[in-house]
């Protein structure tokens, strides 16, 4: 029986009548009162995720963030402490889920210790913000927008640099494009009929640092929610949540991630398995990378953990009051539906491929545009030209589709997307039909020459299989190219630009 239960932040209408939120606010205030170099401070924990504390001469450098919160930039901890704890966040990696689970456990322990010290409940737990919940729950809980606590003191949950999807301070999550479709996926890494590449949890992270693609849970809703909460005013003032280097300064960060953690737990509870590869279970240390390590109230030397320690709530001391996401698995029949749509006469007794398996074969590029695109407010339009020999395999696989010859999946890839403003979402259309949205969360870091990607930027994969099926059914696949338009959700300031290195088209045969 778990000791701690994480509950919905929208209980008692998301106000300070919800004691979880009131105690959270008091805990945040106590942590914010501590110095930057205190391993139990709010600022230190934000830097564990990521930081802009050196080499910045303008926003988003922490010195240039508009208060509240008043973010300190000194005293810095020693270099060895920084090297050990800071900038650990795992993105575009299959470690995204387990690393953040441990991160939540660590800050929850810090705040619980403060709550207990202040005479609060011994079992205080981090609340989650389920923006997919009914009624008004797509809006930020009101406790985060109040200027003061019930006792009249300043509310530490209030953040100035939180602008929302319309950049006007109205914080809500637009549904759609934010969705929990990823909950229908059935495999953590790989692809099949209900799981687009690179899989629910993200691409496997090997011996090098070549990853630049987010997993499906990370891509949407995680990244999208970050961007929409953050919003932007100008290129020198955008929401803290929009950028991984400032995100964890905003107290809403942990409630958002608590919901992402809940979704992962829900996905597992629905019978979906986490990786069993030792390289995942042992964490990055198995491939020569950094260990996951967090300061804890009981151990400032650090609590070291691995994905193996995080893989199931049953081995941890907390539960969620509700794991329901309202998404039902479409395990049975999703492939059959596609085949039927493509005109295949299915025999009821015919065995179908196991949809809990990775069925994706070797991807092959079948088309690409020419030249990089520069996005301005009006967006950009390009023709993704087919390479005839390669592309011919796609209509052929659709023509010959059967249970034993599962047709190709088709993906549109936006490659080497670079820029400095993370606070934007791009809408991508193919032949005037919406193919999907991508959030630019992490763009600045990925575009920095000294960042984790060496300046290569981000790459996005959009599953356009259904769209291509439609084109096939409408006899519209004989053209030489696809017409792709990319439109930014927010204005791009004149002094900024977002570039897309290439737009390419890929087929992935299914085994």
């Amino acid at each position, binding site marked *: 029986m778990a000791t701690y239960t994480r509950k919905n932040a929208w209980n008692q209408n998301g106000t300070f009548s919800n004691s979880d939120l009131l105690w959270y606010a008091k805990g945040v205030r106590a942590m914010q009162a501590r110095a930057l170099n205190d391993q139990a401070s709010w600022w230190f924990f934000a830097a564990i995720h990521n930081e802009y504390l*050196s*080499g910045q001469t303008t926003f988003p450098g922490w010195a240039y963030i508009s208060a509240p919160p008043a973010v300190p930039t000194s005293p810095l901890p020693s270099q060895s402490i920084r090297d050990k704890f800071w900038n650990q966040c795992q993105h575009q990696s299959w470690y995204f889920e387990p690393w953040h689970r441990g991160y939540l456990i660590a800050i929850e322990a810090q705040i619980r210790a403060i709550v207990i010290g202040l005479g609060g409940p011994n079992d205080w737990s981090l609340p989650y913000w389920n923006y997919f919940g009914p009624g008004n729950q797509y809006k930020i809980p009101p406790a985060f927008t109040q200027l003061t606590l019930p006792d009249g003191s300043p509310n530490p949950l209030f953040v100035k640099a939180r602008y929302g999807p319309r950049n006007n301070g109205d914080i809500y999550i637009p549904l759609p494009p934010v969705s929990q479709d990823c909950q229908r996926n059935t495999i953590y*890494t*790989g692809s099949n009929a209900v799981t687009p590449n690179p899989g629910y949890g993200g691409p*496997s992270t*090997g*011996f*090098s*640092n*070549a990853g630049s693609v987010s997993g499906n849970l990370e891509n949407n809703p995680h990244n999208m929610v970050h961007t929409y909460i953050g919003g932007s005013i100008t290129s020198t003032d955008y929401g803290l949540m929009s950028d991984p280097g400032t995100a964890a300064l905003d107290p809403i960060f942990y409630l958002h991630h608590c919901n992402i953690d809940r979704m992962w737990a829900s996905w597992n509870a629905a019978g979906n398995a986490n990786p069993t590869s*030792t390289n995942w279970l*042992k964490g990055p*240390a*198995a*491939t*020569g*990378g950094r260990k996951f390590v967090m300061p804890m109230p009981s151990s400032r030397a650090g609590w070291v953990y691995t994905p193996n320690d995080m893989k199931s709530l049953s081995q941890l001391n907390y539960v969620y009051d509700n794991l329901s996401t309202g998404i039902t698995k479409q395990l049975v029949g999703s492939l059959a539906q596609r085949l039927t749509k493509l005109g295949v006469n299915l025999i009821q007794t015919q065995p179908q491929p196991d949809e809990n398996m*990775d069925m*994706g*074969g*070797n*991807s*092959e*590029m*079948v*088309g*690409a545009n*020419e*030249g*990089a695109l520069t996005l301005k407010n009006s967006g950009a339009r390009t023709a993704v*030209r087919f*390479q005839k*020999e*390669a592309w011919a395999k796609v209509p052929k696989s659709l023509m010959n589709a059967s249970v034993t010859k599962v047709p190709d999946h088709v993906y549109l890839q936006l*490659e*080497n997307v670079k820029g400095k403003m993370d606070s934007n979402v791009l809408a991508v259309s193919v032949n005037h039909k919406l193919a999907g949205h991508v959030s630019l969360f992490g763009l600045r870091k990925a575009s920095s*020459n*000294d*960042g*984790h*990607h*060496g*300046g*290569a930027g981000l790459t996005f994969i959009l599953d356009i299989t259904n769209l291509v099926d439609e084109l096939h059914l409408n006899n519209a696949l004989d053209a030489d190219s696809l017409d792709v338009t990319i439109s930014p959700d927010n204005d791009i300031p004149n002094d900024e630009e977002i570039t897309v*290195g*290439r737009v*390419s088209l890929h087929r992935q045969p299914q*085994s």
Partner: protein
Amino acid sequence: MTAAERSRRSVSLLIFVLSATCWGLLLVKPAAVKHCFVTGGELSRTSLEILLLTNPISPMLAGWGLMVLAMMLPKLIIPIQYTCERSFKNRRFRAASLFVLGYMGVWMVVGALMIGGILGLTLFMPGSYTPAIVVGIIAAIWQFSPVKQQCLNRGHNHKALAAFGRAADYDSVLFGFEHAVWCVGSNWVLMLFPVLLPGGNNFVMLAVTLLMLSEHMEAPRTPRWRINLSSKLIRILFAQTSIRLARS
């Protein structure tokens, strides 16, 4: 293991085999290939003419090229995989070859300059450890400098590649060229050090190869002065050995 991982693994294996072949040739020393190492005392005080007669440029350049291939090919696994994945299937081999061509082109120019320097040192300081000691000191300073870290970081930048026709060929060569520029920036002095040693060159070359591969596999870091002797390769070997022992 996903299909993509299997495909990457086969590319890695092929490159390791090629690198091992180059190492084998370096050790066997065929006639058309001559090591560009500073040679022993038998050339003492000889004229440049005789020196060039005994150390013809072409075999020395061939030796240099072979040395670069042997030492650097394992470092090219990720960019070659990237080049293949971002090229049409029928252009993958061509794109990867052009990438290597661009990469080797830069190193051969650097090699020609280095060989010139080595010949000069051989002429004036035959069999001496002094050049190696001086270069070793420079190597240590460079190794710990922010400039070296900047070069290492930029080696992780994989550029967008054109897909069609001559533009695709050009981009593959350019990608190789740019990758080599950052590779030279981070490793030039490490490459120079073993060839200046009057003896034990192969052993030092192997050690330098492992160090370069190890630091290439590290994630980019903020450039600053730091003691920078990457242990990533050792950490991988240790972790993977532990995993396999635990399984058995």
